[in-house]
C-alpha cells in the first residue's frame, strides 16, 4: 500500500473544482497574485461558506479606489468578510475573529492562501487555528510570482521592506532557551541581505546555518540570494544548506536533521526566504515548541514586490501534532 508522507500538488482547475471549504482565508494585497486562487475558485464554482479577507490597515491607508488591492470585490463572491488587522500587530485580527469562534471551532475544512500574507502573520494564523480553533488540518495555497521586482539591478536592490527594522520573536513562537547551551541560528535565505545581518547580530548565535532555496523558482534566484547575503555566506564558519524553494516539507525535513544534529541547542529560525520554505519552518516549530522563530519587522513593506503569477501550489498541512 502506498503511504502518503506529505501532500503537495500543483493547483489545477480539475483538482480545485472538487474542493469545498468552510472557511477560506486570504490577505488583501496589490500584487497580481493576491487573488489568483480566489479567482480560480470562483471560475470552478468551489463551494466556500465564508471567505475571510484580512484587510491590512497599512496596505489601504494610501491607495485609491482603483488600486488592484480592491479587485477582490470584483471576483464575484458575495460572502467575503473583511477582517480588519494590522501587519505590525499580528494578533490584531483576534478580536475580529472571536465573534466567529463557534463557527471556526466547528469548521472541518479550512483553507489559507499565504501568497500575500507577511510571514509572521501566517505563522500566527496557523498557530491560532491549531491552538484556539482546534483545526486539525489546513489546506494551504500559494501562488509563485513570475518574478520579483529589482528596481536597481538584480543583485542587491531587492527590498521587501522599507525603513527601520526591529527583530522580534513571532508571537507564539518564543521557544525555550536551555541556559548555558549553544545557540544555533538557521536563516532561510531571502534576497534582502540587510535583514540577515541584523538578525545575526541580534541573535548572536554560536553556530549559523543558512538555507538557500534550491532549486529555486527560476535558476538565477538561488544566486541572487547568495550574493545579497555575501557577508554571511562568505564566512567560512557559516554552513550553507539547500532546500527546494517551493517545498515546505523538504524544509521541514532539513530542519529536523539540523535539530537532531545539534542536540539540546536552542534553535532559532529566521524565515526570510520563500513562503513555502517558511511554511515548512512554521510546521517544524509547531512540532518543536522549544524552537524560536524570529523575524525582522520593518517600518513598512513595499506595496508591490512581485510581478504576475507563475505556478500555484496546494499543500495539506496536518495540525494535530503533539
Amino acid at each position: 500500500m502506498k503511504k502518503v508522507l506529505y501532500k503537495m500538488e500543483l493547483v489545477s482547475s480539475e483538482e480545485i473544482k472538487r474542493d469545498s471549504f468552510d472557511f477560506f482565508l486570504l490577505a488583501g494585497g496589490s500584487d497580481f497574485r493576491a487573488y489568483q486562487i480566489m479567482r480560480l475558485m470562483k471560475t470552478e464554482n468551489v463551494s466556500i461558506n465564508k471567505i475571510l479577507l484580512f484587510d491590512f490597515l497599512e496596505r489601504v491607508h494610501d491607495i485609491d479606489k482603483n488600486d488592484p488591492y480592491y479587485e477582490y470585490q470584483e471576483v464575484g463572491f458575495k460572502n467575503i468578510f473583511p477582517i480588519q488587522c494590522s501587519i505590525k500587530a499580528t494578533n490584531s485580527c483576534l478580536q475580529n475573529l472571536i465573534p466567529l469562534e463557534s463557527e471556526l471551532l466547528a469548521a472541518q475544512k479550512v483553507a489559507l492562501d499565504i501568497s500575500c500574507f507577511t510571514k509572521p502573520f501566517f505563522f500566527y494564523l496557523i498557530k491560532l487555528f491549531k491552538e484556539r480553533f482546534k483545526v486539525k488540518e489546513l489546506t494551504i495555497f500559494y501562488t509563485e510570482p513570475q518574478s520579483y521586482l529589482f528596481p536597481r539591478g538584480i543583485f542587491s536592490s531587492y527590498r521587501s521592506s522599507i525603513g527601520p527594522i526591529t527583530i522580534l520573536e513571532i508571537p507564539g513562537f518564543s521557544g525555550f532557551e536551555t541556559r548555558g547551551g549553544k545557540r544555533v541560528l538557521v536563516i532561510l535565505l531571502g534576497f534582502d541581505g540587510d535583514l540577515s545581518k541584523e538578525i545575526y547580530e541580534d541573535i548572536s548565535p554560536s553556530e549559523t546555518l543558512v538555507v538557500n532555496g534550491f532549486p529555486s523558482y527560476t535558476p538565477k534566484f538561488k544566486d541572487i540570494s547568495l550574493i545579497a547575503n555575501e557577508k554571511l555566506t562568505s564566512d567560512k564558519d557559516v554552513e550553507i544548506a539547500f532546500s527546494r524553494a517551493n517545498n515546505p516539507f523538504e524544509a521541514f525535513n532539513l530542519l529536523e536533521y539540523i535539530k537532531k544534529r545539534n542536540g539540546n541547542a536552542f534553535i532559532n529560525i529566521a524565515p526570510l526566504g520563500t513562503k513555502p520554505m517558511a511554511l515548512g519552518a512554521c510546521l517544524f516549530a509547531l512540532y518543536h515548541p522549544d524552537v524560536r522563530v524570529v523575524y525582522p519587522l520593518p517600518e513598512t513593506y513595499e506595496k508591490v514586490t512581485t510581478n504576475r503569477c507563475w505556478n500555484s501550489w496546494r499543500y495539506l498541512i496536518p495540525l494535530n501534532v503533539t
Partner: protein
Amino acid sequence: MTDSYRNPFSGINAVTLDDQAILDYWCSPFAYRLFSEIKEADIYEDPSNIVFMGGRSTGKTMFLRYWSFPVQLKLAAENNSKSGKIIDYFKERKGIGFYIRIDGPVLRSFNGYGIDLEKWNSIFTHYFELIVGRNCIEAIKMFYELGELKREEIENYFIPEVRTIINAPEIVSIDELLKEFDYRIKEVDLFRGNVPFFKVDFIPYRGGFASQSLSFGIPKIIKKTFSDFRQSINFILLIDEYENYSEPQQRVMNTLLRFSSNEIKFRIGMRLKGFRTFNMISEDDFIKEGREYRKVVFEEVLIKDKNYHDFLVEVSKKRLESVTIFKEKGEIDITKFLSKAENIEEEALELISKFPGKHFNHFKKSLRESDIEAIKYRENPLLELLNILWVLRGVPANEVKSAMEDYLQGNTNGEKANKYRMDYIDKYKLSLLFLLCSIYHKNKKYYSFNTFAFLSSGIVGNFIELCRRSFQYAEFENKDLLIKEGTISKEQQNKAALDFSEAELQQINRIESYGGYIHKFINNIGNIFRDFHKDERIRYPETNQFSADIDNLSDPKLKDAMRAAIKWSVIQKKPKIQQTAAGKHLKDIYTINRIYCPSFQISYRTRGGYSVKLTESDIVKLMTEENVSSKDYLKQMSAESTLFDSI
C-alpha cells in the same frame, strides 16, 4: 598550503565566542591607555556603577565578557595563586562578574496583548531576577565542583537560605536548585508563547520575584555563607546591550542601579544615548550621572593618537596569529598587509598619467601661458596644483617657482619657502589630491593601515570589517599572492573601503527610529562636504564637520532623530566644544562617521578648521528634502574670512 588559510577577520562576534576565545582575542585597552577615565582595578573595585557607552562594534561586549566569571575562571586556572586556590585569584582581584545579555527579541516580547505596563514590568522583573540568580548559583556550583567550597556550607547554609527565598522547601542540591530556576524561566517563556492567543494571566506557580529579591538577595546569601566571599569579593553585574531594554524595563533597571550597594555593582554596556530614560519605577525619582553612575565612552572621534593605532595592530595580530599559514610564516603585522600609510604623490601621478596636463587646462582661463610654463613640475602634480593656487591668489609665478624650488632642495629658511612647505605638507596635500580627483573626474583611493584606522572612527569593529573585506577581495582575486607575499593591493583595499562605506550608508535606513530622516541628512551633508572638497580655491580644506545645538532643538522629534544618529554612531560628537571657525564662538561640533567618507569622496581626517553651521531649519531641510543644494553653505563659507586670506 592554502588549506590552512581562512580570512582572519571573518566571523568573530564577541557574544558568540567561547570563553577561551575571549582570552585568545583579548587586547587590554588599559595597556594602550585608551581610557583616561578608569583604571583596570575599577572594574571590580570602584564603588560606583559604570556605564560603558559606544557604537556598534566598539568592543563593549568583548570588554564586559572578559570580566565575567567563566572567562576569569580560565585565567585563574592559568595563573595559579600562591595558595593554589582558585578562589584566591578572585579575592586578589576583589570581584566576581556575571555577564547578562538578554537579546532584543526577548526584551521586546514583554509588551502588548492587552496586558498593562505595570504587569509586564512585574513579569520582566521576575524574569530578570531569575536570570541573575541562576548565574550566581551556577558560579557557586563551579566553585564547589572545583573543590573550592565546602559541602557542609553548601548543604547546611547556602541551599536552605536560597530555597527559603524561592519558596522551594524540597530542594537539597545545587543541581536541583538550577533545575528549579530553569523551570521558572521556562514558565515565563511559556507565558510569552501563549499570551498572543489566549487571555491569560501570569501566575508563577510558586510566586513572583520582586526587584532585588534574587539579584541582590543571592549575592548577599553567598557573602553571608562563604567566608572567602565575605570580605573582599564584590559582585559585579555586567549588563550588555542596555539600549535594547524598553523604557519601562530601563526604569526597572535604573531603580536597581540606584539601590545597588558597595558590594553589588553594575557595569553596563550600551550605545551612545542608550538611556531611553533616567527615570526609576517611582515616578518622581531619577538617576543621574556622577551620582548613580559614571560614564566611560568607548568611541572617541578624535582617537587619532598612536595608542589607538597600536591597539589596532595588536587586535589584528591576534587574528592573524589565529590563521595557521600566517602564524607559521610570521606574517602577523597588519601594516605590512595594507602598507603603513598611503602614498599621496604616487596616487596623484597615477591619476594624471593618461591626461597629464588636464589640471592646467582646467585653469587656463585664469592663468597666463608664461605662468603655466614657469610653475610646471612634472614629477609632482600636487605641487603644480599648489602653484596654480598661489598664482591665482596673486603671488607672481616666478616667486612661486622659486619657493617651490627652495622647498624641493630642502632650503626652507626663507619666509616664502617655509610658507610653501607648510602649505603643502601641513595644510593642503590631501586637499590638493581631492581637488585633482575632482578635476580629473576620478575617485580618490582609500587604502593603507593609517587610512583604515582613521575610517574606523574609533570603532574597532569598523576597522576589522575593512580588513575582512580587503582579505576577501585579495583571496578572491589572487589568493596565492596574498599568502606568498602577505600584501593586499591598494585597489583591493579601496574596493573594500567603498563597499563597506556604501553598505553602512545603506544600513542607516534600517535604524529602528528615524532611519529614513537620518539617511537623508547624511546624504545631504555628505554631498555638501563633497562640494567643499571641490572648491577650487580650497578655502576650507577637508571640511567634514558641522556645528549644531542639538540639545536645544525646539522640535522634540528633530532632537530625537539627531540623538538616534549619535546613538548609532552615524554622527559623532567631538569630545570638546570648539570654534566653528577662527575667531568664532565655541560650539558643539559633530563629524559624520568617517566610514561614509569613501562614498562621498571626502577626507577621512578631521582638520578641525571650519565647521558648517546648521540651524534648526537647516537640519529640518537636510532631513526631509532630497538633494539639498550646497550653494547656501558655500556662501556661508565665502562670507567668512578664509585661511587663504592670511597668505
